[in-house]
């Protein structure tokens, strides 16, 4: 069987695609009305930039950052499988401040899940630069545990520039209990028998006790702001 051409095409395409991913600017667009030199039209606009450009309040795209006493504890008993196939619970993984977002590999909308995964990859880089990696954790959870096996999640993360390790995870809920986890985390999605029907964009920030500190939604979050949030939580 001649496999070489497949592998070569796959690898070349992966390289090309990852270079495309890295070209996507994040948190750089000051206004979609006036893209600055070198910017790609149609690039994602973050919540804070959108708010700045329109004079709107950030409350429209995020909940306020809550003080410890005002935070409520989320149910984190749901079992999940990591990208390495290890079965654990969310509770065990949220042993430090954690940012959780959601995506799935079969998402047909190029403006949503691939960008979410890419933005999580960039967030990981920002956390590393800020010296926070190891003190905080990132986690993506797939909406589609029926399809997204650990191998699929690893592939999806790789081509969208999200490096996986103990500090940045890709998690698969149990197939039967998937909807329970999404309900517990108040995820903005509805489902059909085969998977997700409609979903939004969301990043939830938990403190080390598993309490909800803030939730970004509707638009892609601003990674600088997410780094600030996680730093504040790490210093608590």
């Amino acid at each position, binding site marked *: *069987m001649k*496999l070489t051409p*497949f*592998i070569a*095409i*796959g*690898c070349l*395409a*992966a390289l*090309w*695609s990852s270079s*495309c*991913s890295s070209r996507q600017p994040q948190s750089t667009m000051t*206004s*979609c*009305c006036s*893209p600055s030199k070198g910017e790609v*039209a*149609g690039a*994602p*606009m973050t919540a804070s930039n*959108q*708010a700045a*450009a*329109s*004079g*709107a309040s950030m409350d*429209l*795209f995020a909940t306020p950052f809550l003080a410890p006493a005002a935070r409520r504890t989320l149910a984190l008993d749901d079992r999940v499988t990591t990208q390495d196939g290890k079965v654990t619970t969310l509770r065990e993984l949220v042993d430090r401040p954690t940012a959780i977002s959601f995506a799935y*590999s079969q998402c*047909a*909308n*190029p*403006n*949503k899940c*691939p*960008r979410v995964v890419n933005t999580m990859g960039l967030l990981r880089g920002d956390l590393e630069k800020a010296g926070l990696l190891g003190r905080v954790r990132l986690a993506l959870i797939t909406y589609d545990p029926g399809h997204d096996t650990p*191998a*699929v999640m690893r*592939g*999806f993360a790789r*081509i*969208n520039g999200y490096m996986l390790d103990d500090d940045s995870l890709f998690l698969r809920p149990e197939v039967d209990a998937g909807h329970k986890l999404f309900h517990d985390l108040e*995820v*903005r*999605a*509805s*489902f*059909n*028998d*085969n998977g*997700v*029907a*409609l*979903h*939004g*964009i969301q990043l939830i920030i938990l403190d080390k006790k598993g309490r909800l500190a803030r939730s970004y*939604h*509707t*638009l892609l979050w601003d990674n600088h702001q997410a780094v600030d949030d996680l730093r504040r939580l790490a210093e608590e």
Partner: protein
Amino acid sequence: MMTNPVSSLRRRVFAGALALAFFCKQGAAWADSRPEQDAFTRQSLEAQAGQIRRGDEAAHREYVAQMLSLFGKTGNTAFLRECSANLSAREALAVLTPLLQHTNADVRFVALDGLLLHKREALPALTNLLACLSDPDERVIVEAADGVSQLGKVSVYAVPALQRILLTSAYSAATRRAAAGALGEIGPPAQMTLAALDAAAHDPHAGLALTALVAAGEIRRQPPLSCEELETGGPAIFLGAKAYRALEATRVPVCPPDESAGLMVHLLASHPPAPLRVEACRILGKLAPDSLEAVNVLFDQIEDPEPLVAQAAADAMDALPAKNPALIPVLIEGASQSNGLKAILCARFLARFGPDAASAAPAMLADIGHFRGPENFGRSLACLAAVRATGTNASGTRSNLSAWLTETAVIYTGLDQHHAKQMRAAVLLTLADVGPTADALPAVLDELANSSSLPLQAAAVRVAGLLQEQGRVCVPRLCELLNRVGLDAAVDLDNFDALTEEMQPVPGAHPTSVCLESIRALRRLGPAARPALAVVRQRAADPARPLPYFPPYQREAAELADALAKMQ
């Protein structure tokens, strides 16, 4: 069982390569969403330059070549249908006639449909049209039979082929019925087919039998019965030798419309054979009475076990006028029944009452909440359309509608992604008409910023423009849409057929109209949008990046230019 480690490794590598290829394709789709990589937009803009309608032969040939290349190579029926409706007869003959021989039956069907829109102006392609009567695909035959019978005197050339179809039992009853109907349309010149039609009038298939009976009557030019004969004969007269003349008398009608409608109601109540039930329903639809009796008798026929009767009753219900307010409570009751077709018809009927049926809005919302899932999708859209038609009279529904915009709303549960998006677009459009509130902002921004669906974006743009002061937050996204939308997204539109039927979305939600809606929205937002207008003007004046434009949408493009001019 032992596993061969080498073949297992090969399988894994092969699966890995496939997965990589899949993910890379997704990456490519992402990259292609950017305008500078939208080859289709570029190609269209380069090719047209506004010369086509000015009689420039070279440009015309170029346009024809381009269309053939686009449609012929890809078999892109959705876009072909969108464009063929807007072609001139000359363009249609040049572009569509060769496509009648396309290997893809869908392309042949749409090309034929597009040609027949031009009726007698399509006569230069008569030979090709007649050849369609021998097409291997029966949909094409049915379309051709209907079309050639409308071509005037030359239709007689189709008679031998139509008779052959009628006599060929291998064809479906629907195809043979179309042939019989076409022969009836042609009339006396189809005299030679009378024996075949008389035989078909006894066919076990109700629709074919009735069509053949009527066609034979039309070819013989039998005069209708008089009103007196009709009244004295009663329902029984429709069953005997005078059946065609009796039907013709109600169709003309020789009696006053109300009396004829009453006769049809009595005929249906006497439960005649299926062909007559079909015809009586059709005649009722044409007479369009506004009486409760007519509605009730049609309700009964909707549940008829014979599908043709149910369909004819449904068509008749759709044709009844919304004049009699006494019908509204009956229709609200009908809309809440478990029979989905009946509910849809009642909701549509209520929609025709417009603002007068505002009292139905709460019941419509309750219906959407109660009957959910894929099997009730069409019903929900019909109910939303009824609410939409009441306009601001249904302002009490605003909070419910806004709540349904959240991704977790129960109305999306169980739907596939395609239908979930349609549902959200329908809710947005409804909200636009009843008057949106700031609660809709998160969903509107989500669609403006993240959606990959043009109709959904068009609906969100419309709501954004109506949010007044709160809509200011949408201004950057509206500008962005003006910059970003590409013509390739037009292909997506055809996937929203059901939405088009029930909801009448933003007219022809193609990229030009999304831009147009964006400009209108910005104008509606008034001073809040002022910073954006300079950018819009700059964008419009930039020769390197013209706004999406396509000849079939000239009117919209002209409107867009006009809107831009008024902003100066």
